[in-house]
């Protein structure tokens, strides 16, 4: 009940109302959201392909992650802020959207995959940083990441057709 009230408050706020009713806010925010999310996913794909041994093989794994992941996080912050602003236009409907929930479920799984990779697999990266043999746990992390982020894009795009 408290949550429903909270969503209602956001929807009726001047901020939520402006994004919902303004002619430009929603498309502008959506455009920024797209630029940010393709930057997030594209930079992650570059790292995933290195983990899978399919690209950038002459580069150490740590160099690829150090080069690209700061940009991933910067873009992720922009995607999260613009996403929350889009959400605040019609929070009740978005909250009830099954497709949006599925999207966040896959984002959650992508986050778990990233944490496991970072805190377990990546711990001994020095041993395989420049090696031709990439541990299967790292390949699995790269493959899962590609799959999960593709699903996030699919369900995210689908939300736009239902609300």
């Amino acid at each position, binding site marked *: 009940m408290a949550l429903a009230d909270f969503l209602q408050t956001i929807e009726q706020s001047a901020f939520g109302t402006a994004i919902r009713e303004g002619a430009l806010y929603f498309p502008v925010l959506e*455009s920024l959201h797209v630029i940010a999310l*393709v930057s997030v*996913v*594209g930079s992650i794909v570059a790292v995933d392909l290195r983990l899978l041994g399919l690209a950038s093989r002459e580069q150490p794994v740590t160099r690829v992650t150090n*080069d690209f992941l700061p940009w991933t996080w910067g873009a992720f912050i922009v995607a999260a802020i613009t996403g929350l602003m889009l959400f605040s236009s019609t929070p009740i409907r978005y909250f009830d959207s099954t497709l949006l929930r599925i999207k966040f479920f896959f984002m959650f799984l992508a986050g778990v995959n990233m944490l496991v990779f970072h805190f377990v697999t990546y711990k001994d990266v020095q041993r395989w940083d420049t090696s031709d043999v990439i541990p299967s746990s790292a390949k699995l992390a790269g493959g899962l990441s590609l799959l999960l982020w593709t699903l996030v894009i699919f369900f995210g*795009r*689908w939300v736009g*057709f239902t609300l």
Partner: protein
Amino acid sequence: MPRSDYGVLRVQRSPGPVSNGANKKPVTGFHLRPRGCEMQSAAISQFADWIAHTSLSGVIVTYEWIIPSTQSVHYMALAVLFSSAAIINLRILGLISGHTPLTRVAQRFAPGIWIALVVMIVTGLVLLIGEPARSLTTWEFQSKMVMLVLVAALTVYMQRRIADGASHWDVAAAVPGTARAAAVASLVLWMLIIVAGRWIAYHT
């Protein structure tokens, strides 16, 4: 502001192809435009109408999952294309991958631009055939295509410059001003193309 994506699944079709006779009458809506522009607009509308009545177009809009799925693949390819282009441009500006020579960064990421572009053109054609009027006849789509041609030409030019032994570009401080300007122009054009693409959905 209507969420126009929703309308994609409920396409309004005109009752039949425009007959040639109809075009002989003055098109009142365009009376302020020069004659050439009027004829061009009519030709594009007619072409869009013809596509809309092909069986392929009918199939694309009959199955509700085709357009959202195709857009998702379009976006996945966009992620690869935009990031590949951004990495090369940011490397020219000295903002990313400073330890890696520019020529090597370009070798690694240039193919991503072109492979993803092919995927985007194919998926884009599916979207266009499904809803030709929504794209072909709108200024949003037309400006997107003009910018795409510009940025593609700019990208070819820059990749040739990089391959032509612009090895001194590898040191960020030595990058000529024109290369920096080209990198910024390329980044801005790609972002404007994304904005124009999203704007197509809001065309009224």
